[in-house]
């Protein structure tokens, strides 16, 4: 490729607007154009670096589009069976209590096949961080209906739209785990605009810091897109997400540490 004229003059520290995190590997990500996963990975890598957690972090990757997450972030990883990441993370954290242990899971993994593991690890208040990417579809297997697919939304297994009478309603699993005394911080964010990326990074940083307190599970949902699965251009997917997904999955904190402490002290009184 021909070198762009003057590029060497442009690459100077004072012009640096964005630097790739040292924790991100040079592996080329396999995600489709416009997918939110790569942004979520980038924030996560930046936070691990900024919080000085590379030597302490042990991640558990799921089955789904982010199955190769371990290729992209330079920390120790365990690849879990579909839906079982919270069980795997439970044991890692119990046996290595000083480490920063987190899972990164999609909606099929976390809210369908792994519902029991999600609910029970949160209910035990495992001191782990769960990152939940919700794009309302099974991306890796080619666009089938997910537990979080919106009513009327088309997928390859709901070709005429999700009929809630026969296929059930989308499950708001984040609201469910927020109700459990075992969770300490539960929030729902997105990564589709620069402002939202900054907000999500802030929320994830809080979650990482909170989990050091050993006060319970931190749970961060990122409502995301799937241009390929939704069969939309990336800009259209983001607009559609704002207009439809956010109506059903409103962004913001579902449970703050103050609320969690309040709930925990009430539960203890009932003992």
């Amino acid at each position, binding site marked *: 490729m021909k070198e762009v004229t003057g590029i060497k003059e442009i690459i100077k520290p004072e012009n640096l607007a964005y630097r790739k995190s040292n924790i991100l590997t040079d592996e080329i990500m396999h995600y489709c154009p416009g997918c939110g996963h790569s942004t979520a990975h980038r924030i996560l890598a930046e936070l691990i670096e900024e919080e000085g957690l*590379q*030597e*302490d*972090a*042990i991640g*558990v990757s799921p089955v789904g589009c982010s*199955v*190769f997450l*371990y290729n992209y972030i*330079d*920390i*120790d*990883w*365990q*690849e*879990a*069976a579909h839906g*079982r990441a919270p*069980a*795997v*993370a*439970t*044991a*890692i954290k*119990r*046996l*290595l209590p000083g*480490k920063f242990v987190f899972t990164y899971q999609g909606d099929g993994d976390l809210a369908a096949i792994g519902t*029991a*593991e999600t609910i*029970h690890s949160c209910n035990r208040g495992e001191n782990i961080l769960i990152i939940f990417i919700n794009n309302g579809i099974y991306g890796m297997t080619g666009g089938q209906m997910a537990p979080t697919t919106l009513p009327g939304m088309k997928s390859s297994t709901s070709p005429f739209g999700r009929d809630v009478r026969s296929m059930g309603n989308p499950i708001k699993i984040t609201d469910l785990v927020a109700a459990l005394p075992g969770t300490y911080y539960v929030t729902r964010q997105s990564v589709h605009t620069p402002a939202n990326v900054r907000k999500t990074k802030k929320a994830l940083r809080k979650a990482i810091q909170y989990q050091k307190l050993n006060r319970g599970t931190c749970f961060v949902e990122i409502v995301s897109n799937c241009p390929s699965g939704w069969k939309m251009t990336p800009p259209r997917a983001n607009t559609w997400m704002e207009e439809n997904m956010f109506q059903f999955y409103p962004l913001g904190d579902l449970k703050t540490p103050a609320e969690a402490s309040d709930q925990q002290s009430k539960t203890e009184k009932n003992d």
Partner: protein
Amino acid sequence: MERELRLMKGNEAVAEAAIRAGADGYFGYPITPQSEIIEYLMEADPYRRTGMVVLQAESELAAINMVYGGAGCGKKVMTTSSSPGISLMQEGLSYIAGAELPCLIVNVARGGPGLGTIQPSQSDYFQAVKGGGHGDYHLIVLAPASVQEMADFVELGFDLAFKYRNPVMILSDGAIGQMMEKVWLGPQKERSKTSPEWATTGKTTTRKRNIITSLELDPNRQEIFNLKLVDKYNAIRKNEVRYEEFRCDDADYLLVAYGTSARVCQKSVELAREQGIRAGLLRPVTLFPFPSDPINRLAGKTKLILTVEMSAGQMVEDVRLAVNGKVPVHYYGRIGGIIPTPDEVVENLKKLITEL
């Protein structure tokens, strides 16, 4: 804690032996006839004794994946269950074998299929020795025939698991789990302070990141990995065959039985000899690797072989493969949770002898 003689159930012996072997973690879900294991562990409070973690999981599915997580950290971890629960664990066992993780699983088997019975059975033989879950893999399978072996095989199981980076199963049954015998328990071992170099313990600056996975999209690389597993299983077949002979030296008729059935058959051998029938018993201690060569060798010196098992005839297939047509191989067994009596076995043997 010193070496000690105790009167214990097989299930309790497993639990106490695990603590003393320096296990790091136990993850389990209650199921009859082995719930005493997790009850004993909770009561014994091993976290206070050695720092061993004990956790009651929400399902066998979660329990085996907790074992995956702990084993991935290079820790000595285990789970126990009975037949229906072991079926639920098969997905996890396949992943554990695929990720080459060392761990210990105890199956205190009961009769099936389905919910079946809670009485002892050996009908999980195929599942235990032929892989059980999906894909080409093997567990190392140990078959205890006493409470003492229930205790001893815990440490042996952990040793073999770490030696080969492979899951090890103790295939017991409800009779051995529930019966009480005297048992020598070993002294308390310290929990290991170090982890193997492949374990996920947090990436340090001095090494590359460790990844525990069983995923490989490139079929050429998957084949290379599968061949590596084949080499490992062949090494296990070569090095780890364990079996016991009882009065085989002059035996005209050979019984082959493991676990509870072997206890029964030992008595049958004595009863048969009282009647002038020179019977002997070969008891496989490892079911994978199977003692094929010793059985083949003895087959050359005997007139017939009778395999006795509490199943509809599972191990008999491996005995036939080992004997390879040298002598007739027969099966006798009781199923559905019933244990055969020594007399039944002798009667069957006598009938087969008259038919020779």
